[in-house]
Structure formats: C-alpha cells, structure tokens
C-alpha cells in the first residue's frame, strides 16, 4: 500500500483530513481493496472511541421531544399515503378515454423519430465498415516490417519485467526501512524520556553547584577573616620581636649593670682592704681635667684603678693602662672601661708587686695596632711609691 495513503487512512477514519487529502484517499480507495480493508478496521476502532467517553444519560425531555417529532412525522407520512397517487389518477384518465387523441398524436411522433434514428444508425454502420476494411489492408502489409518492432517490443517487455521486479524489491526495502524508522521513532521517544530524566538530574546537580558556590563564598569570607587575623598576628609578632629586642637590650643593659656592679664590688673590696693606699694619676696637658687613683697594697700584685673625666673615644680607640718598670719599661696592664659619665675602672693584676713599678700612665691607642708608647703619648701619668 502507498506509504502516504497509509499515513492518511487513520486520519480519514478519525475525520481529521482536509478536503484535498480526503479526495486523494477516496481516489485510492476506489482502486485498492487492501486500503478499503484497512480503512474498515480503522473505522471500527474509531467508532469505539466514543465509548471511551463517560456515558451520560440525557434528560427524559430529550427522548420525549424526539418521539413527539417522530410521531408527527409518522402522522404526516400516513396522511400522504392516504392520498391517491399520480399514476393512479393518470390511469383513470386513460380508462375514461378522454386522452385518446393526445395519445395517438404522441405515438405518431415517436414513430417518425424512430425512423430517423434507424436511418442514422445504418449510415454510421456503413462508414465504420469502410474504415475497418482500410485497417485490414494496412494490417496485411505489416508483418515484414513489424518483426523488428516485435523483437524490440519483446526486449522492452523483458526490461519492463526487470524494472517491475526492481520496483517490487525497492518497495520491500522501503517497507523494511519504514518498519525500522517506526522502531527508531519509538526508540527516539524513549531516548527523549531518558534525556528529560537526565535534564532533571542536571538541574539537581546545578542546584548542588549553586549551593556549593554559596559555601565557597562563605569559605572566601572565612579566608578573609583568617587573613585579617593573620595580619593581626603578624603585627603582634612584630610587636613581640620589638619587645624581644627591647628585652635583649634590657638584658644587655642589665648584664652591663651587673658587670659594673661586680666591678664596683671588686673595687670596693680593694678600697676596703687593710694596708691599701691610694696612688694618684692625673691628666697631662693633653687631658688636664682627668684624674684618678690606683688603690692597692704596694706589697700585693693586684689593685683597683678608678679614673674620672675621661671623654668618650671615637670607635676603634681605647684607653690603655701602663705600668712602668725601671728595667722592663712599659708593661700593658689592661684596657680601662669608661662609662657614660666618663668614669673608668680597671682591676690591675700584673703578677708583680705594685710597689716594684716606678710609675703608671694611660694612653689612647688603636684597638688593632700593637702599641708603642712613649712619654709623649701619655694623657695621664702618676708615680708609684712603695
């Protein structure tokens, strides 16, 4: 069956075709019995569809109204049936003889017309017989010339048969393809359904992602807070470092103070020891404001030097304390520590009795150079007496 008609038949039965489509199907139905059978089957189904609707009894008024109309119609039919028929009236006139002249005239007219018609038919038959004779002559002359045509006709028929076979094969393939397409369309429907489900899943995932984005935003906020806290901690660290530095300085100051206290205590030990005596040392013209004492027992090899009025030195320079022996010359006896107030102290421990030395002095020397003192380089000098 034609595929297009196959598509149209259900809608023909359902009453869903345009007039043009309906005309096309009507023409096809006149020629194809299988289409008529298909339509009959479809129509049976379609007529059942009305049963699918919930049945609802109409009100009694509908039936009463209908039956009244029907009764009136029956009465009208009976009235018409009761009237004499036209033919009966005509036969009555005929029987009475009042129409005889008119009938005679009518019969004569019919006879004349029949004679004319017979003459016309005879003439036409003669003409056709002549034409037939002419055709016979032509046909008799044909056999010799017709043979090649017949051969060609045979070839054409075989070709035609082959083409018909091919067309039949094509139709079968088309049918198979149609079935396959129907299956694919069904499958397509299922796939669409799956796609819809997957879309729902994707929508759910998008919702989750949206929720995750909110959580990420929260995390960013938390990160900002952490960063602020980190900066605060860093500032605190810097404060701690500063405090530690301050503490270290304090410790250093403390150590210096302790050292000073220790030195002062040591000096106090010498100052308060019995048999000690102060031996003066004063500034030369180079440093006239400086003065001090070496407090020691001349019979001991130790003593404490205390100087005041020493100005601060440039970096790399120190105050060098010397003991002068009449045979050994200048002997290094230590570096004088000077505080901010210009007071210098030194515990002297020359391994020889202080009383054996002749004099003492202080010079300014470079830290990294071996000193070579002279009388002129002394900024303070003092005599030692036993």
């Amino acid at each position: 069956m034609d595929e297009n008609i196959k598509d149209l038949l259900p809608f023909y039965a359902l009453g869903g075709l345009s007039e043009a489509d309906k005309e096309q199907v009507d023409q096809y139905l006149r020629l194809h019995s299988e289409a008529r059978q298909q339509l009959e089957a479809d129509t049976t189904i379609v007529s059942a569809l009305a049963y699918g609707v919930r049945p609802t009894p109409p009100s009694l008024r509908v039936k009463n109204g209908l039956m009244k109309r029907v009764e009136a119609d029956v009465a009208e039919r009976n009235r018409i049936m009761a009237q004499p028929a036209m033919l009966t009236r005509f036969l009555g006139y005929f029987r009475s003889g009042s129409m005889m002249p008119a009938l005679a005239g009518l019969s004569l007219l019919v006879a004349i017309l029949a004679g004319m018609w017979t003459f016309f038919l005879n003439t036409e038959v003669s003409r056709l017989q002549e034409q037939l004779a002419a055709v016979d002559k032509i046909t008799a002359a044909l056999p010799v010339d017709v043979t090649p045509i017949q051969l060609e006709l045979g070839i054409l028929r075989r070709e035609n048969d082959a083409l018909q076979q091919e067309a039949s094969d094509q139709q079968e393939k088309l049918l198979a393809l149609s079935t396959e397409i129907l299956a694919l369309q069904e499958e397509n429907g299922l796939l669409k359904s799956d796609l819809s489900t997957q879309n729902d899943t994707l929508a759910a995932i998008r919702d989750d992602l949206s929720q995750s984005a909110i959580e990420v935003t929260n995390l960013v906020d938390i990160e900002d807070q952490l960063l602020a806290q980190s900066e605060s901690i860093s500032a605190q660290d810097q404060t701690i470092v500063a405090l530690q530095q301050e503490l270290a300085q304090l410790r250093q100051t403390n150590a210096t103070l302790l050292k000073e206290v220790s030195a002062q205590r040591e000096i106090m030990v010498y100052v308060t020891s019995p048999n000690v005596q102060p031996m003066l040392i004063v500034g030369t013209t180079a440093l006239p404001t400086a003065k001090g004492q070496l407090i020691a027992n001349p019979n001991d090899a130790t003593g404490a030097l205390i100087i005041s009025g020493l100005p601060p030195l440039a970096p790399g320079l120190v105050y060098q304390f010397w003991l002068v022996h009449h045979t050994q010359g200048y002997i290094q006896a230590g570096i004088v520590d000077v505080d901010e107030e210009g007071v210098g102290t030194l515990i002297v421990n020359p391994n020889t009795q202080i009383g054996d030395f002749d004099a003492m002095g202080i010079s300014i020397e470079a830290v990294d150079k071996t000193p070579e003192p002279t009388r002129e380089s002394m900024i303070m000098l003092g005599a030692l007496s036993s």
Partner: protein
Amino acid sequence: MTNAATFLRYTKLNEENLAMPAADSSRAQNVTWAKGLNQLDDIQIMAKIADGDASSLEVLYDRHSSAVMGLCLKMLNDRAAAEEIVQEAFWRVWRNADSFRKQRGSPVSWLFGIARNLCIDYWRRHKIRPQPTFADEGDGTEIVSSHNVDESVWTSIKHNQVRQAMADLPQAQRRVIELAYFWGMTRQEIAETIDVPLGTVHTRARLAMQKLREFLAGQGFEE
C-alpha cells in the same frame, strides 16, 4: 455481542425494566412489541426504522443515547447544547435510516459519526472551538440509565474496555487520537498544536490505532 451482554439482555431484569405500567391497551401492546424488538440487533433495528417503525427508534435510543450524550458533552462541554445534538442525531437516524449501509460500518458507528459531525457544525455555527482537555473519564461503574438498566450496564462495560485501551496508550499517541476525534483537528493542526513534525503525528496515529485494535480484540470488544 459478548456473553455478558447477551445474558443481561434476556434476564428478568430486562423484562422488569420493560414491564412498565400500561395505562391503556395500546401502550401494553407497544411494550410487548418492544420486548420483541429488544432481542433484535442494531442492524435489524435499523431495517425496521427504515420501514418507519418508531418503536425501533425508541429501542435504538435507549441502547445508545447515553454514549452519544457522553460524546456530545465531551465535545461541547454544554449540557443543553449536547442534549439538543443528541435529539437531532437520532432524528437524522429516523429520517435517513434508508440510507444506512451496513457494509460501511455498524449502526452505532454511523450514529456516533452523525453526532460528532453535528457537534463540529455546532462549533462552526457558534464560532467556538473548545480548548482540548485530557481528563480521565472515570471508570463508569456507577452509570446506570433510568431508561434501560441492562443497556446501561452494557454501555458501561464497553466504556471501561475502551477507556482502559486508551489509558494503555502512551500519552503522546493518545493525545493525537483525542485531538483528531474529539476536537476535530486535522493532522496539520495537531502537528502545530503539539509542536511536532507531521511525520511524527502520522507515526503516533498509526501506532495508536494498531495498539487499540490489538487491545480491544483481546478484550472481545464488540460494538
């Protein structure tokens, strides 16, 4: 006709239903005649209607008026208009019974066709086109006509069979059938309404018809 319907048709229930109080002898004769008519099938009834027998039309009306009314009510959604169409449909059966040809289908499908065309004419006359609805039609078990109990039961059985057949169709296929039959749409209008290619509408209609045919045949459905 199925065994169930045949059984119902010949039970005492049927006779009690028809044995209405006769006010006079002619009414009683009509009832007796109607008992006989009730045993005829629709095609035989149509032949009697074509001969001008009003009682046969009444029998046909009792058998099928509920189903025809249901169809009209679905298509028009207006009870008064639906009742008007029901009366007109049976009137046309009465006037044109002699043009009925059983080769073209059953009397009831002819009747449904008349009613459906009248509904479509009604839309055109009143320039309306109701919006399609696809509500479930109910199971029909509660439907019992006051005119004729066994016919109503038989109608309910058929209603349930067809309703189930329609319910078993995939929604997309069912919709094509409903739009064409109940809402009078052409295949092109259906394709536009549900926004699918015309070829898809054809496929759905063919598959739907095939499934309905198989289902109803399996149920022993008869008109």
